[in-house]
């Protein structure tokens, strides 16, 4: 199991991901600096959360034009798995590897708390298969721009294709995202973007261990 963690100026969840993956897979992930142009032979590339380039212009916009992105696109075109968490999700939408855009939370506040996300019935994907649909995972969020937006036609496509991976609970949508979306998959199911931070619910000092379940399942699915 070879995992790459891409680090941009302003990434701040890279070490949390490192510790989570190391603990669960018993293997050491590799940090990849955003200026690297040749990343190959990884089973999973993780784009961690943070405030890359200070969120200048738009969240993820500058990072999505970093040199490393070409390698990430190549990995995606080979069907490689990519996980973008929070700012990583924003970067993946800015690169257009995932549809939609993350706009400002409807409450105009930075949100940082635990909540439940519900695993959806999706197309085949290492990120969701292994969970029964409607499984609740208690995973924290921490974001200012997590309000997922797609236009009506794109939303219909996401629903039809089974690309919605996670939803917030009905009536507990924290940020105003369309259809309560908390995470979406690419059309081939190999790329996931999610706003909640599974790496923050892995260890016994965290409020929940559901992020551990998420990574355990992902690693099992990728190795199977």
């Amino acid at each position: 199991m070879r995992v790459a963690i891409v680090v941009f100026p302003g990434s701040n969840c890279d070490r949390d991901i490192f510790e989570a993956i190391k603990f669960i897979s018993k293997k050491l992930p590799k940090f990849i600096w955003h200026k690297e142009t040749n990343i190959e032979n990884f089973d999973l590339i993780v784009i961690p959360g943070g405030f890359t380039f200070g969120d200048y212009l738009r969240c993820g916009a500058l990072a999505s034009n970093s040199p490393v992105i070409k390698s990430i696109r190549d990995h995606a075109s080979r069907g490689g798995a990519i996980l973008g968490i929070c700012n990583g999700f924003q970067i993946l939408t800015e690169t257009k590897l995932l549809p939609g855009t993350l706009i400002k939370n409807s409450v105009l506040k930075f949100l940082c708390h635990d909540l439940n996300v519900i695993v959806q019935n999706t197309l085949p994907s290492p990120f969701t298969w292994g969970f029964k649909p409607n499984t609740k995972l208690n995973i924290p969020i921490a974001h200012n721009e997590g309000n997922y937006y797609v236009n009506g036609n794109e939303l219909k496509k996401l629903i039809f294709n089974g690309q919605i991976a996670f939803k917030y609970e009905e009536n507990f949508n924290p940020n105003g995202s369309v259809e309560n979306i908390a995470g979406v998959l690419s059309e081939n199911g190999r790329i996931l973007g999610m706003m909640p931070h599974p790496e923050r619910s892995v260890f016994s000092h965290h409020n929940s261990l559901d992020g551990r379940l998420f990574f355990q399942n992902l690693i099992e699915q990728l190795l199977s």
Partner: protein
Amino acid sequence: MIIDVIIDIFPKKEVLNPETEAIKKTLSNLGYKNIDELILSKQIKLSFKNLNEEDCLYQSKLMCNQILVNTNIQDYEISLLKKD
């Protein structure tokens, strides 16, 4: 010759903008009750040298589509200002 290009970037009408709504609400609380529409835009000014007008516009459009604008949620307008 220097050519200035002004790029105005604003949210698409169909995208609900919570920031705009908050400003409208505050203006209404201040007594400005007749505002039908409020648009919060971002302006980028570029000064080009040694390029003709056509190329300035072409490059500006490329930049907008490549990085400056997220066309999922934003529209843009480019205007040109010639200086000596």
